[in-house]
C-alpha cells in the first residue's frame, strides 16, 4: 500500500488516515510511521485503540482500502552512532523506525508504567546493533523505574556513551527528557503530539508554544529540538 509514501518517508514523519464515512464524521487520524519496506512498497502503522476514531480504524476488514495522506511533517535529523532513543508507551512507534535507520551502535530505552503497556511485538524490537533496555515503573518487566531513571543512570555511568537523545512518549516524560538534555548539554530531539485537523500546516490547530512563538506540530514538527519547546503546566 501507499508506495509513494514509502519511498519518500523518513523516521519521525507521520501520515493522516482518513476514516471511512461514518455516522458522526471523524477527523483524519495522524499516526506515526512504524516501519517501511521500500522493496515491497509496504507501510506499517501501529496504533492503540483509544477513542472512536481508532475504533473505526481497528474495525476495518483486512483488504479494505483507506485514504492516506503523507508522509507529513519534519522527521528526526540524521542520527549519529551512540545515540540514546527513549520511548515511553506508544512513543515506541517512531523510535522503532528511527532505530532501524540509525547509525549503529545505539541504545533503545523502552519504558511504561507496567508490562501490559509494553505492547510493541518483541520481534520488532530486535534490531541489529541496537541495545534494548526495558523498564517498568512497577517492575513487572525489565528494570524497575521510569525511562528517565534508566536514562540518567546511563549518562551518569558514562557521559561519553551518548552523542544525542531522541525521544517520544507522554508529555511529562518528554519534559523530563528535555530538562535532562538542557542540564547535560546533549542534543535532544523530541516527537510531540497535538490534536490535528488538516495535517498539512494550514489550519493552525496543532500549535505548540516554543521560544520562537507558536509552531505547528504537523508542519514545523512533529520533531522539535527539546531546547525550543516550552512545556506548560
Amino acid at each position, binding site marked *: 500500500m501507499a508506495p509513494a509514501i514509502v519511498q519518500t518517508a523518513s523516521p519521525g514523519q507521520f501520515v493522516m488516515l482518513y476514516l471511512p464515512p461514518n455516522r458522526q*464524521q*471523524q477527523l483524519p487520524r495522524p499516526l506515526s510511521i512504524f516501519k517501511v519496506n521500500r522493496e515491497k512498497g509496504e507501510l506499517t502503522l501501529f496504533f492503540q485503540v483509544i477513542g472512536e476514531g481508532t475504533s473505526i480504524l481497528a474495525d476495518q476488514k483486512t483488504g479494505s482500502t483507506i485514504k492516506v495522506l503523507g508522509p507529513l511533517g519534519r522527521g528526526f535529523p540524521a542520527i549519529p552512532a551512540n545515540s540514546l532513543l527513549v520511548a515511553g508507551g506508544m512513543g515506541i512507534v517512531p523510535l522503532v523506525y528511527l532505530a532501524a535507520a540509525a547509525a549503529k551502535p545505539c541504545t533503545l530505552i523502552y519504558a511504561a508504567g507496567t508490562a501490559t503497556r509494553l505492547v510493541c511485538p518483541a520481534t520488532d524490537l530486535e534490531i541489529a546493533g541496537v541495545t534494548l533496555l526495558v523498564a517498568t515503573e512497577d517492575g513487572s518487566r525489565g528494570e524497575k523505574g521510569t525511562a528517565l531513571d534508566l536514562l540518567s543512570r546511563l549518562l551518569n555511568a558514562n557521559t561519553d556513551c551518548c552523542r544525542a537523545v531522541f525521544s517520544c512518549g507522554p508529555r511529562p516524560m518528554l519534559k523530563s527528557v528535555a530538562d535532562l538534555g538542557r542540564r547535560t548539554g546533549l542534543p535532544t530531539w523530541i516527537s510531540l503530539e497535538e*490534536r490535528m*485537523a488538516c495535517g498539512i*500546516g494550514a489550519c493552525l*490547530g496543532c*500549535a505548540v508554544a516554543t521560544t520562537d512563538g507558536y509552531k505547528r506540530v504537523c508542519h514545523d514538527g512533529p520533531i522539535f529540538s527539546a531546547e525550543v519547546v516550552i512545556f506548560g503546566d
Partner: protein
Amino acid sequence: MVTEPDLAVNLGGLKLETPILAASGPLGDSHQYRERFSTSALGAIIVKGISAEPWPGNPPPRLAETASGVLNAIGLQNPGLKHFLEQDLPRLRNAGPRVIVNIVGRTVEEYALVAAGLNGQEGVDGLEINISCPNIKAGGLAFGADPDQAYQVVSAVRRQTTLPLLVKLSPNVTDITVIARAAEAAGADALSLINTLSGMLIDIEKRRPLLGNTFGGLSGRAILPVALKMVWQTAGAVKIPLLGMGGISSARDALQFFMAGARAVAVGTALFYNPELPEQIYRDLIDYMIEHDIAALKNIEGIAQKGVDHNDQ
C-alpha cells in the same frame, strides 16, 4: 432537457465559475492545500483572517472534536498584512479560483487599514469582513453583535475599497437579520453566514476547560440546521446575495442552502474529513441539476421560501 447546467454565479459583483467556495480558516492562505489537491471545483478561496499587524493566536489546545463537529479556538493567528502582501499573495495569483481575503481587526481603524492595503492589489478579487469571530477577546464578535458597530466597521471598510465586499455574520446574536440589515445599509455587496457557534468543553481529568482559550467556535455537520435557518431568515430580510455556510458536507447539504436563499455556498470543516470534497459536490450538483432539469442555480435560489407564510415563523 438540460444537459449542461450553468453553475456560474454572481456574488455581489464577484463572478464565480462555480458556487462552491472554501470558507475562511481551514485552509489558511491555501498554498499547502493547493500543492496537494485540485481546486478546479472551487469558485473562490477565502483566505484566513488578515490583520494590520501579526497576531500570535491562542494558547493550545486549540482544537477538540465534538459530536459531528469541531470546536476550535485558533485565535485568528496570522502573519499580518505586510507579510501577506509580500509572501503569501504572490503565491495566490493565478492560482485558479478567485481570491477573497478575510479581514480582522480590534478597532474600526484597523479594519480600514487592512482594507486599504488590500484594495487594488493584483490577485485580490474580494474582501470578507470578519465581524464574528468568537475566539478573540477584543473586537471580533463585538462588532458582529451590535448593529451600530457593525454599520460603523462595514462603512469604514467600504470607504477604503472598490472590491466586492462580503460581511461574515455571527450566529451568536438574538436576531441575525438586524445585523444583516445594518451591514447591507453600510454598503456590503453580499453576506457570509454563519460563522461558528460559541461553545466550550471541560477536561474532566484536569478539571478545567479543554481549550486554551476556554471558549471556542463550533463548526461541522452539527451546526447545519442552525446555519440553514439563519440563511433562510436573512434571505427574507435583505436584497444582497448570500454566501451560505455551516456544516455543508455534500451536494444535498448545499442544495438546501440554495433553496433557503443562498447564491453560493462555502465548505470549511468538511474539508478536513475529505479534502477532495469540492469536486464531489460539483459533480453531484451537476447530476442533480440534470436529473431535475434545472438550467441554472438561480432557478432554485430561495425556492423553498415560496408559499411559506413568514408571518407564521
